[in-house]
């Protein structure tokens, strides 16, 4: 499945959730379902400091594809991180760098990716792209 196909899948799932509370409950569920980051990875090395909540992000590069894992101390933040990971994982660095991720807007969660929220998610997305760029450079050398 491509990033775009996975985005459509998420949009489809959210289309049944009209009320904000249903959306949030779904995010909470996803935040809880995501495999917990090993405590040894919850260190400053992987920390993305937001003013409101903290995010830890790790990336692995195998057979030309990136897999991220993440954690957050806030469950809604963690749920959105889980969404981004689900859409972006198992993709090549190029695919990740070219993804527009407009699905976040489509499903009505754009406010969470606003710099003013200061929840660490904007920085997390940036960090995901940095990883992709770094792996791309590494693999082309």
């Amino acid at each position: 499945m491509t990033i775009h196909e996975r985005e459509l899948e998420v949009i489809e799932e959210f289309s049944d959730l009209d009320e904000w509370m249903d959306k949030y409950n779904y995010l909470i569920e996803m935040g809880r379902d995501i495999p917990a980051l090993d405590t040894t990875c919850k260190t400053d090395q992987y920390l993305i400091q937001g003013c409101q909540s903290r995010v830890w992000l790790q990336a692995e590069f195998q057979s030309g594809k990136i897999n991220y894992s993440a954690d957050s101390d806030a469950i809604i933040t963690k749920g959105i991180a889980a969404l981004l990971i689900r859409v972006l994982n198992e993709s090549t660095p190029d695919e990740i760098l070219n993804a527009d991720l407009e699905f976040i807007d489509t499903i009505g969660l754009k406010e969470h990716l606003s710099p003013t929220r200061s929840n660490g998610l904007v920085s997390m997305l940036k960090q995901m792209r940095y990883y992709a760029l770094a792996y791309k450079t590494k693999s082309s050398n």
Partner: protein
Amino acid sequence: MNDFPIDTIREDFPLLKAQVNKTRLVYFDNAATTQKPVQVIDTIDNLYRNQNSSIHRSVNYLSGKMTEAYEGARETVRRFVHANNSREIIFTAGATASINLVATSFGEAFIEEGDEVLVSAMEHHSNIVPWQLLCDRKKARLKVLPVNDIGELQMDQLPILLTERTRLIAVTQVSNAMGVINPVNEIIRQAHEKNIPVLIDGAQSIQHGQINVQEMDCDFYVFSGHKVYGPTGIGVLYGKEKWLEAMPPYQGGGDMIDRVSFSGTSFNVLPFKFEAGTTNYVGAIALGAALEYIEHIGLDHIDAYEIALNDYAGNALRSIPGIRIFGDSKMKHPIFSFLLENIHPYDAGMVLDKLGIAIRTGTHCAMPLMEHFGIDGTIRASMCFYNTKEEVDRFVEGINTVQEMFG
């Protein structure tokens, strides 16, 4: 609480009628900023429509009117804080700007290497960082009066911390993060016994009752207009005349000068010495309107209503299972800082926002205080005289929803 004209008062604040996420707004973020009554909004509108002209300089009719209104606002502030004379009232951009003025100007004149400045552990960053910068510049020491487990100042430590090298105490009258009221009169009394001046950060006290700087006998008192129902970008520094006279100018520019030549410049008299450049005269006049508005309602009435609201909200919050309130002191204003067991403040804030309830989450610009409690932040609900018991009830319902969702 019953004879307080709450309905009429709420009519004065247009934003209190706002709908947020399809529901009536409950505005509990008053410690961050307060909403504005029409009396303030109309003042600003009228000034720009009908009276705008630069103050103090021009000979034209409008300038004269504006200058008169600006100096009238200074007199209103003087009356409101009960200063001895209006030369002691300096308009600034806000409490932060006022503190920076004192830290720079007083610091320049009176702080030397090895001297000490004392702040408390519950200060807003604005009453910490200017002193840190000063201490760095002067190789002076910043000392800290600690707080106890319920967020009150450890007053028994004060005599130990006041030394021969203490040159100034800067302490808040009310904690912005917890609402705890500090015994500033006692701090000032002890400080003055040792001839140490005291700056009181009034950012969270100006809106909650009578302020009398002469009775308090503080040397400086600072506050922001936007926290007392006035506009943003305007604030006040009250300083005893003897200090303001002895302090050098802070910023140079227009209005603060007497004569300028390249061989030297002489400075204007107080209060203009500290008001460089075109001041925020519209802000100052609108602040005057805000103070007149709450004088009209009556500070004693506001105080009594807020005490009742504080008791009501305190009881309601304390009955919530799994809540931990920080600064649950008997001496406090209706600001509540708390955590819910196993729920991150950001998650709670997100859900409360969806329910139309505006609160703040995070460290509230008081990281050292959060460190003292060993936490990353809290949920803070801050109320004032236009809030109601019904809003407290909706807030408590909102917290129940949060607990159901994340529990």
